[in-house]
């Protein structure tokens, strides 16, 4: 009996020591397709946007640059810089020579620019709250007028390749948000809306990462 248990223990030990897996299962974050290969560039230059309209007390260009620069730096391995040369007109987007001249020889740069409109308006909203119970409001639902502050950020964004001066990507983003606070501050609303634009832009430019299982073979 004792000899048998020793033999079994020896066999188990031998097998345990010999054990080596054929594969290793790994969760891998895989990049998805993006029309822009950001890795091909050494620098992203944020240039001033053409701002058609903005509420008083807010500088949309400054806000865009202040928000996008650190966000891009988190995701982009190269440099992110700001260019202060203002755009003269919309024609500039279609002038490759303008962007080539602005690049001044740094062919591995990508210009991030575009048009932006940030508007605010106050709208009257009809309230129609259904009665909660017969005891509370036995006759009809409470009705009335209330004010809503609505902000809209309309961005037409261009990514322009410095080497050729041609747009690599052009996309329009329109984000609207309604606030129950009629005195909602424009800078706070801008922050809410630019976050949405950023999420969409980054999804497009960087590609969403997929987490998938892959098997690495050991032999």
């Amino acid at each position, binding site marked *: 009996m004792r000899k048998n248990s020793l033999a079994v223990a*020896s066999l188990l030990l031998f097998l345990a020591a010999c054990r080596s897996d054929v594969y290793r299962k790994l969760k*891998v*974050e*895989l*990049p998805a*397709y993006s029309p822009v290969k950001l890795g091909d560039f050494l620098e992203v230059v944020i240039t001033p946007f053409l701002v058609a309209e903005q509420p008083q007390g807010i500088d949309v260009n400054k806000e865009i640059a202040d928000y996008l620069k650190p966000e891009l730096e988190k995701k982009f391995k190269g440099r992110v810089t700001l260019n202060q040369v203002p755009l003269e007109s919309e024609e500039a987007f279609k002038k490759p020579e303008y962007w080539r001249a602005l690049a001044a020889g740094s062919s591995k740069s990508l210009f991030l620019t575009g048009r932006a409109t940030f508007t605010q308006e106050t709208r009257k909203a009809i309230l129609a709250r259904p009665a909660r119970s017969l005891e509370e409001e036995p006759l009809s639902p409470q009705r009335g007028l209330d004010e809503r502050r609505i902000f809209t950020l309309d961005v037409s964004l261009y990514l322009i390749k410095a080497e050729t001066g041609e747009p690599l990507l052009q996309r329009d983003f329109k984000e609207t948000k309604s606030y129950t606070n009629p005195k909602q501050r424009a800078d706070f609303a801008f922050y809410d809306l630019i976050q949405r634009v950023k999420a969409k832009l980054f999804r497009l430019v960087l590609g969403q990462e997929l987490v998938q299982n892959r098997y*690495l073979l050991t*032999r």
Partner: protein
Amino acid sequence: MNRILPKGITAAFLVSLLLTACSFLPKPDQVSFGIWAAEQDLWDEAIFRWKRAVALDPNSVAAHNNLAVAYEKKGLWEEARREYEIALKLAPENRWLKANYQSFKENLEASDKAKEKEKKEAEKDEKK
């Protein structure tokens, strides 16, 4: 003394058994180093190791498969496809390799659809 001796012999036997078994284990090689690097998220190092493994043994299914995974991780689709195809030629029935390739192909098809959509939108913009 009589009681101690059998225990000592048993222990010595077990240790020698363990050492013998361990000697059968594959020695750390380029493929294993690469796997270790990939597990630490050091994919460039892993690629370097697996490329060396391929140079040493061009018929290493593990090295080709692992390189394909690393290229996928880096977004180098064409290189990944090439390595998967070589690995599949060498071991067409390897189920882990087939599982990897299947997922890779599905991702690629999704990318192609996205590219197609992108192209159509660009054409639409041009017409505007």
